[in-house]
């Protein structure tokens, strides 16, 4: 066991996979010589050389196109899109090409590739560099969607994503890069689609993702102080979605609160809420409450950004509303 930052876990995971499999290559803007703008890929160029770790022009369509063409012809590329907001400039590649090609070709083409991207707010970067867009990805059939909340999960899930035969959109939450956690020695590989119950609880089920997991945990502490016993589930992946773990917990607690960093409308929380409203309706003892960033672009100023994003206090209020 060693302590490691979320940031360093990214490089560790990529290194683990590149060492194992020579077909893994890595490309993106400023990722090689500079080690990434978040310093999450430092050292990879030295370790694996300029053939496998490649700096690109500012051309996100060219980056994802290169990744896709390489994936269909024998490589396993990891492509970095620096900020998840920039997925919008290459969304055609994600939504129309990468996601649909296996299906359209009746299974002829495999696309074992990973798109890593820095997601989310809390860093005062303003509306074009702070979006949490995991729901953009979830709504597109044909891609898997993963978002770890701890350094250990960064390694386990990124390794699983690289080994997965399908395209995976891997969201690294920017506000977590500096956080630390225990990471076991040796190879780490998880299975995609397993949620973790990070806290057991009998009274309410709180479902969270990425940076919202520690906030949900903080809310659970606050609730415990007033005698409410909250379960907290870290989804870890949106596709595949671990409906079983969610449903089991909701059946036990009778209450569901989702906590999302993305803006309100059509977030993944809506999907989770809808599944529960269809499949567990008679187990519910109160309204399903979604705690989200309001349906606004994210403001830049500290005071405003903090007010916009879900806080432990707002999560507590959401739980109270469900239990009322």
């Amino acid at each position, binding site marked *: 066991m060693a302590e490691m930052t979320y940031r360093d876990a990214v490089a560790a995971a990529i290194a683990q996979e590149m060492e194992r499999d020579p077909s893994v290559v890595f490309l993106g803007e400023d990722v090689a010589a500079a080690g990434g703008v978040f310093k999450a890929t430092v050292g990879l160029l030295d370790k694996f050389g300029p053939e496998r770790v490649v700096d690109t022009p500012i051309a996100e369509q060219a980056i994802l*196109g290169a990744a*896709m063409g390489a994936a269909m012809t024998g490589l396993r590329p990891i492509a970095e899109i620096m900020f998840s907001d920039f997925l919008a400039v290459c969304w055609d590649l994600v939504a129309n090409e990468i996601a649909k090609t296996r299906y359209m*070709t009746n299974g002829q083409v495999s696309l074992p590739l990973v798109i890593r991207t820095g997601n989310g707010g809390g860093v005062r970067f303003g509306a074009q560099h702070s979006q949490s867009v995991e729901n953009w990805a979830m709504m597109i*059939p044909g891609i898997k969607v993963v978002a770890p909340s701890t350094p250990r999960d960064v390694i386990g899930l990124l390794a699983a994503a690289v080994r997965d035969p399908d395209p995976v959109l891997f969201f690294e939450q920017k506000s977590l890069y500096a956080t630390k956690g225990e990471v076991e020695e040796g190879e780490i590989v998880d299975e995609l689609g397993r949620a973790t119950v990070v806290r057991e609880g009998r009274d309410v089920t709180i479902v969270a993702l990425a940076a919202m997991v520690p906030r949900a945990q903080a809310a659970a502490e606050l609730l415990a102080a007033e005698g409410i016993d909250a379960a907290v589930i870290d989804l870890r992946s949106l596709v595949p979605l671990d409906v079983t773990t969610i449903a089991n917990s909701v059946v036990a607690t009778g209450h569901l609160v989702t906590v999302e960093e993305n803006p309100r409308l059509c977030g993944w929380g809506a999907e989770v809420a809808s599944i529960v409203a269809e499949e567990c309706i008679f187990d519910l003892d109160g309204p399903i409450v979604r705690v989200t960033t309001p349906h606004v672009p994210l403001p830049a100023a500290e005071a405003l950004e903090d007010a916009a994003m879900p806080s432990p206090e707002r999560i507590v209020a959401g739980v109270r509303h469900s239990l009322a």
Partner: protein
Amino acid sequence: MFSSRPKPETMTAPAAGASAPSLAPAAPPQEVRLSLYRRMLEMRGFEKRAYDLFLQGLVKGTSHLGLGQEAVAAAFGEAMRPDDYTFATYRGHNHTLARGVPMVPVMAELMGRETGLMAGKGGSMHLTSVEHGMMGSYAIIGAHLTIANGAAWSAKVRGTDQVAVCFFGDGTTNIGAFHEALNLAAVWKLPVVFVCENNLWMEYTPIGSVTAVRQPAAGRAGAYNLPPVLVDGNDADAMYAIATSSIARARAGEGPALIEALTYRHGGHSRADPAKYRPEDEVRQWLERDPLPRYRFRLAADGVAAEALDRIEAEAQATVDEATAQAQASAEPPVGLVEKDVFADGGATWRR
């Protein structure tokens, strides 16, 4: 509005400073020429049949025919190695057949049948046969140029000497992905050949009215430090020459090429479009330059017997007839396919 349309009579002349092949490229070997002729005939027959089937309601949705543009696809098909990669567009029937993909599954795909190349899941605009190096037909303008780069990059990294060839239209040169793809290909010196089939029209808008330079591809080559190459896309021998040399250069590690082939679509953009928007004169002049009769004339002039040419024509037609019959005899795909092959496990399951 039509002022930037190249005049047909000057068409084979390369642009100023272009490194185009000489006006009379060395003729390909006889067997290549006969094979080219056969392939073009098959394409022509296939596309005409596809049109008829569309009118009969047997091809649904849409289809974009390559009638008149056969020489480009056929020449590259001959010049490519079996393990090279083709990337084409929605107007990709010719390019698919050019790689030796059998006609039955292609026809069946247009008709949405179970025996279709993708069992009906892709349709006319997405013909793909990985087995034949046909890496897909792409229906949204631009992206596939960047994807072709990826295949070329992969060939380079894997140390094979495969080449990727990417076909697209004149209108495609104005979208952003074109620029991103060409720059990356040049910087990374990728083994990729970009082939712009300049048929003078987007859907219903003449390319000259929306493009800053006279030659949509050749006029942009300099922006990527590539030589401008302008070639007569209706001359199968000229096309074969440029295909051979550009592929050889790419294979030898000398980097990408951007080729502008001047050609013309005989029919409308898609479906039953009568293409009334095009000036009659333009259509007439280009029909006179039809690559097929032109090639037959040349082969005959070079000594190929009329009976030999007639036989090839008859065989091509028989192939089309046979393919039509077989495709038409095929069943509709089972509805169970709807939820198949979204993911590599064969299914569409997004939950557990």
